[in-house]
C-alpha cells in the first residue's frame, strides 16, 4: 500500500469537482434506499470511496461491492481487505462461482475476452446486485468474509466512471436510469440541470449514479496526491520500470513502461510526459476487440 504525503497543490478545479461529487453522493443517499457503491479497487472508485467519506463526514452509510473475477492481480485483493478493515467498511464481494468452477473463462481458453468480461463481470454484477447469487460480506467481528444468501436487491448503484475514459462513457448522466435488464438507452436520457437530477423512478427501474463523470485521469491523480488517499502499489514502479496505469484482470491487463514511483511522478507523466497523449485504457485488451466493444458491454450492464 502506498500512502503519499499530503500534497500542497491548491486547486479550485479539484475543489469544484469534489463539491459536485459530494453533492451527487448526498443526493443519491437522500433519494434511494437500497444503495450500493461499486469499488473496483482501482484509483477512480477509490477516490469515489474517499469522496463518500467526505460527503458523510467520515462515514460510509451504504455497502461497497466488489466483483471478484478470481483473476484480479493478487495485490488488489490484499489492498482491498486492508482498507475494509481500516475504514470498517460494509464490504460485499460477488463472483460468478459457476463459470469459475466450470472453468468457462478466457484464461481457460473457452471464451473470448469480451465473453469472459460478460460472464465474470457483467453477469456476476447483475446477479449479485439482485441478490439472486450468494454474496460474501465481510464480518468485522470474525475478521473474514461470510456467505450471505438471498440478500436484498440493490436498485441504486454508485459507479466511478469518468466521461473522458472512452467514447460511450461520455454520454452518461450523473443519474442514469436502467430498466430491469440493465438496458441503457443512450438517445433517450433525462435532462440534468442546475444540480437537479432524475431522482424519481417507476418501480423496476434501476439507477446508476456517476459522481465522477466530470473528472479526468489527471484530476484523479492530483486529488489522490492532495488528499493523501491510499491506492494500491500496482500503480507505481517498484524498480522494474513498469507499472499499471489501469487495473483489471491479469490475463487482459498489461503494465506500461514507466518509472513513475510516486503520485507526483504520475501527475507529471500524464501532464507533460509520455502519457500526455496516449489513452489511459490502452493497456486494456478487451477494449480493442469488436470495435466499440465497451459500448456493447455497457449496454449489457458493464460498468
Amino acid at each position: 500500500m502506498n500512502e503519499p504525503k499530503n500534497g500542497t497543490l491548491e486547486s479550485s478545479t479539484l475543489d469544484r469537482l469534489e463539491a459536485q461529487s459530494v453533492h451527487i453522493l448526498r443526493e443519491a443517499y437522500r433519494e434511494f434506499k437500497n444503495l450500493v457503491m461499486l469499488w473496483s479497487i482501482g484509483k477512480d472508485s477509490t477516490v469515489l470511496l474517499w469522496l463518500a467519506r467526505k460527503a458523510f463526514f467520515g462515514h460510509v452509510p451504504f455497502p461497497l461491492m466488489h466483483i471478484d473475477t478470481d483473476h484480479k492481480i493478487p495485490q488488489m485483493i490484499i489492498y482491498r481487505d486492508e482498507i475494509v478493515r481500516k475504514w470498517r467498511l460494509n464490504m460485499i464481494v460477488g463472483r460468478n462461482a459457476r463459470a469459475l468452477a466450470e472453468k468457462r473463462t478466457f484464461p481457460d481458453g473457452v471464451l473470448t475476452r469480451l465473453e469472459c468480461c460478460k460472464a465474470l463481470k457483467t453477469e456476476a454484477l447483475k446477479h449479485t446486485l439482485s441478490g439472486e447469487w450468494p454474496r460474501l460480506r465481510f464480518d468485522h467481528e470474525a475478521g473474514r468474509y461470510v456467505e450471505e444468501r438471498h440478500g436484498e436487491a440493490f436498485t441504486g448503484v454508485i459507479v466511478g466512471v469518468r466521461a473522458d475514459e472512452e467514447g460511450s462513457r461520455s454520454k452518461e448522466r450523473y443519474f442514469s436510469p436502467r430498466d430491469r435488464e440493465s438496458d441503457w438507452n443512450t438517445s433517450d436520457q433525462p435532462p440534468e440541470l442546475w444540480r437537479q437530477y432524475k431522482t424519481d423512478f417507476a418501480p423496476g427501474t434501476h439507477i446508476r449514479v456517476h459522481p465522477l463523470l466530470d473528472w479526468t485521469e489527471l484530476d484523479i491523480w492530483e486529488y489522490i496526491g492532495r488528499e493523501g488517499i491510499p491506492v494500491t502499489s500496482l500503480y507505481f514502479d517498484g524498480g522494474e520500470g513498469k507499472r499499471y496505469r489501469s487495473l483489471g484482470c491479469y490475463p487482459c491487463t498489461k503494465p506500461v513502461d514507466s518509472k513513475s514511483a510516486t503520485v507526483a511522478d504520475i501527475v507529471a507523466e500524464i501532464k507533460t510526459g509520455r502519457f500526455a497523449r496516449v489513452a489511459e485504457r490502452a493497456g486494456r485488451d478487451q477494449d480493442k476487440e469488436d470495435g466499440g466493444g465497451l459500448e456493447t458491454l455497457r449496454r449489457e450492464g458493464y460498468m
Partner: protein
Amino acid sequence: MTQGRDMEQMNVVVVGHVDHGKSTLLGRLMADTHSLPDGKLDQVRATCARNAKPFEYAFLLDALKDEQSQGITIDTARCFFKTERRRYILIDAPGHVEFLRNMITGAARAEAALLLIDAREGIQENSRRHGYIISMLGIKQICILVNKMDLVGNDQRAFDSVRTEYERFLRRLDVHPVSFIPISATGGVNVVARSRAEMPWYTGPTVLEQLDALERPGSPLELPFRFPVQDVYKFTEGGDDRRIFAGTVLTGSVKTGQAVTFYPSGKQSRISTVEAFHAGPRSTASANEAVGFTLDTQLYVRPGEVMVRSDQTVPLVGHRFRANLFWMGRAPMIKGKNYKLKIGSARVPLKLVEVLSVLDAADFVSEHSKQQVDRHDVAECLLETHHPVAFDQVDRVLDMGRFVIVDDCDIAGAGIILERADDAASTVAEHVHAREMAWESGSISAADRAAAYGHAARCVVLTGSDAGVLAGLAGGVELALFRAGRKAYYARPANVERGLEADIRFRGEMQEEHVRRLGELARLLTDAGLIFITSLVDADDDDLKMLDMLGSPGEILVVRLGDAVAGNLSAHLALPAGIDPEKGVAAVLELLAQRRITPQPAVPEKA
C-alpha cells in the same frame, strides 16, 4: 504554457440548428490546438481514404461506435482542450429539436455559449430556440459564429444580414452577444488561425481569441448567503453525536457564530461549527462548497428548507409565483394535474394555475390563448405549490430563482422565477369549498348519528418522532374507546400505505399527497360518525393545517408526543415522549371528554 491546476477552467456550450456545423467546429478546434491524441487525425484520414469518402473534421467526434474507441479522449458530448489562458470544456449540444433535453443538459453546465448559424440557410427555428434557452439558462456570454462563409463567397453582406436579423431577435430577449464572427469551420478560417486572404474585411477576433477574451461570470460570493438543506445526518457509528445539516452553499458565505434563519419555516439558530472530513478546522463556508453545519440549538428542520444569514436579505416565501419555463415532457403541462417542483433542495407538489403566454418557437411571437404548455414550448405561467416554498427572484439570486418540474418521474420542465404572486385562495381551499358545496348528506344528519352513537365524530391526529410509539398510543386509544362503546377507528399507516397509497412511490417526498389522502379519509370517516384516529410522524404546522382544511367542516384534534419541535407548535394536547402508555391513553380520552366529543365520564363518588 501554464501547467498548474490553478489554471482557470471554463465550460462552453456549442449550440445551433442541426447541420450548421457544430461537430466540424469542434473537430477543427481540437485539431488546430493540437489537443487530439497522437496519430488520431491521421488515423481518421486513413479510415476515410480506405472507405473512399472525403475526410471531414466532424468525423473526429463520431466516436461512439468506432474502431478507435479505446484510444480517444474526445467524444461527442464533451471535448477538453487548453490554451495559455485556461482549460476549456466544450460541450457539444445536439441541434435537432428531438434532442432538446440533451441540449439543455449540456448548456446548463456552461458559462459561455458559441451559437452557430449557417450563412447560407440563415436563422432557423433552433437558432432562435437555442438563443432563448441560453438566455433563460442565465448564460450572459454568447458569441455568434456565422459559419460556412466559404459557401457564400466570404461575402460581408451575407454576414451582415445574418448579424442584423439575429441581433434584433436577441435584443427582444434582452441578450447582448459578445461578438459575431464569420468563420469557415471546414477550412479553419477564423477558428484558430486568422486568414486574411478569405475575409480581409473582418478585423475582429478568431474563435479562439474570443474564447480567451471571455471573463468568468461574477462571483456568487457577493450575493446573500443561501444554503438549501440537502439532508440532516446523525451517524452514530463510532460514538459520533454530531447532528449535521449537509448541503451545498449556493451563494454568499458564512462564519461560525453567525445567526441564521431557515425558510420557509422561519426557525432561527446560530452556526456552531463548519464540518468537513479530512480537512483542518474551519470557521467559514462559501459558495459552491459542499459542507455541513452544526447549530447551537436543537432544531427540527426538514431537508428542503433554505438556511440564510439573519443579517442579510431574506428570500421570498410563498405559494404562488410567476415564472418562465420551457417544457420537455412528452405529455403537455396541463391545469389540474399534480406535478413536483424541485427548487434548491425542496421538493413540493405543484400545479399549473394559468398559462399567461406561450412563445411560438417557429416565429417567436407570443400567444395568449393557450391553455396548456406543449413540448418544446417556452411559456410564462402562474404556478402554485401546496406548501409554501422559499425562493428568490432570478434577477436577484440566480441559483435560488430556478427550478425544474417533474411530471410522472421525469424532469419535464425547467424555469426561472420572475416574481412572487399574491397568495390568493389556495387550490386546497378552493377544492374544499367546491367539495363541501356539492357534498351529498343523505337523510341522516351528523346530529342523528351522534345521538345514535352517543358521541360526536372527530378526527384525532397523533404526531411525534417515533412511529412505533405513536402506533402504540393510537391503538390504545382505539381499544379504550371501543371498550367504552364508542365507534372509533385507527387507520393503521401500514394498511393505508399498502392500499389507498399503493400508487405513491416515495414516501418522504409525497408527504403532501399522504396528508391530502388522510384529509379526505378523515372527511369521509367523520361523516360516518366515527372518532377517526390517525398518526403522522413529524407532522409540521403546514401538514396539520392542510389536514384540518381537508377534514373540515369538523376540526382536527392534535396530540403531540415529545418536545415541541419547531414548526409543530399547535397541539391541543402535548404529552412527554416517554409517557406511560396507559397514562397517554387516559390523557387522550380526557381530551375527548373535555371537548365534549364523548360524554363526560360518570363521576365515581356519586355512587
